[in-house]
């Protein structure tokens, strides 16, 4: 799966979890930029990402996922 496909799928997850179809992902986007992105919805989003991509994050990795770009890159590495 290339980066664009990952972004496309992740965008769909963001729309679903954060209840906003207008979200356009950017690499430097953080929780502060998205209205309903809090600790709870973050965990729901992570669970959904794990399901959709069939991957599993480590706790230490999760703490480094501050920006959307980090998330996309981590998914990319896990899938390769």
């Amino acid at each position, binding site marked *: 799966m290339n980066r664009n496909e990952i972004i496309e799928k992740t965008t769909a997850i963001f729309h679903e979890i954060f*209840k906003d179809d207008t979200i356009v992902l950017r690499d430097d986007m953080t*929780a502060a930029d998205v209205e309903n992105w*809090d*600790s*709870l919805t973050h*965990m729901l989003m992570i669970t959904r990402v794990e399901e959709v991509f069939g991957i599993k994050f480590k706790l*230490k990795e999760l*703490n480094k996922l501050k920006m959307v770009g980090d998330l996309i890159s981590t998914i990319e590495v896990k899938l390769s």
Partner: protein
Amino acid sequence: MDNSFSSEVLLSVLDKISRFPTRNAFCIDEEHYTYAQFGQCVSKVRSQLTKTNYSNTKVGLVINDDLETYAAIFALWMEGDCYVPLHPDWPMERCLDICEQVELDLVLDSSEKSRYENVQVLKTSELEYTVDCLEPKQGVSDDELAYILFTSGSTGKPKGVQLSRKNLASFIDAFFDIYPMDENDRCLQCFDLTFDLSIMSYLAPLLRGACVYTVPPDEIKYTYIGSLIEDVQLTFALMAPSTIKYLRPYFDEMDCTSLKHSLFCGEALHEDVTKAWSECAMNAVIDNVYGPTEDTIFCSTYRFNRASNNKSHNGVLSIGKPMKNCGMVIFDEQHNECAVGEMGELCLSGPQLTMGYYKNDEKNKESFFVKDGVRWYRSGDLCYKDKDGDIMYSGRLDHQAKIQGFRVELGEIEFHAKKYLGDKNVVCIAFDNKDGLTEIAIFIESEEFNTNELIAYMNTKMPSYMIPKRFFFVPVFPLNANDKTDKVKLKAMIQ
């Protein structure tokens, strides 16, 4: 005059400031602050307070995650004042409603730019320490308030629970009767200061010279805590059960051997996740503690038994027995005490019990009653006692839910949604998702429409944890035999 608050709380903290000047009192966002620094910070806020002209002893406090905010609490207490937390992330309208209800004439704010305009603001982060100002004001009665916390109210307006200095001193007395703590402890403070579990989390350590570790608000709380326990070797942690529910997939990566006490409060604690946690926090005493804000932080404890069976009801661990001086009785509808095993409403009494809701006669009449000279609070929790006196929790009697440990009146969400949608019927239902976590679903009697604007509106009225996560459109709501909306049928649509 009884003033155990002054001796048990204020003088005890001052004693730690003078005895342990070089030990750490706080670790906030990875920066350590010693007891000496904490004392100086309290002094600078207190000094300024004594020079400020304000008449209401109830003072607003913008709760940022910094030393000034914690120091302000003690400065206010030393001055005989009470703090009313104002959350920086809550909709301004909600905060202004609180300011108005309590008629605040002073707000302490450490933010770079304050959101408050039409009230006197004391910017605590701009103050400089010059001299010590730590002598508690004399002659302040323990009947004076220590804090007012606003919780969700079904009429769309948050309601203020008033807790006195006596209430808090009684809690501290009961707490240390069970839990040992000393200057070598490292303690977790993972709660918003709008939530009373935060008070145990910062106050108990400071009364023993221990160090308080806060969770920065821009971090993902659950994963941050998961790493913090191991990184700083926390010894004492009070958490909401949802924290370990979310961390469960990572238990095998976590080293929690440093934990000596692991307490849970705020929501139902399930036996299965506790058992898994007990293997992770293998050296910890694990307690399920219970209590509403109205009875000062918590009032009962149940100790998880590693070696044998535990008491539970529908998989939820017992909330145990009352703490020192706390009254907990199960009453039936006629206020007769229920027999062993008989289900009824758990009612609370004793020195930790609030004097009532701030200027809310209607709610006070509804929630409190006197029987044989004792004043009782109706918790709204459906419970029964077993033959040993351990209390089992079975659910809510009303339309209230716990989301991430926060109390939510589903009626308040319905109120705001209806207001926006005009004549449409709306029902909110709390449900447990597949991870066993409580979420809110909203049912709208309507054809499907885009909910973005509705969500945006609700975000201006309520904190994010109150915003429903699932939306259902039903052309016509089903009715039950009593011609009321059939919530059971609606709930069945969630799965």
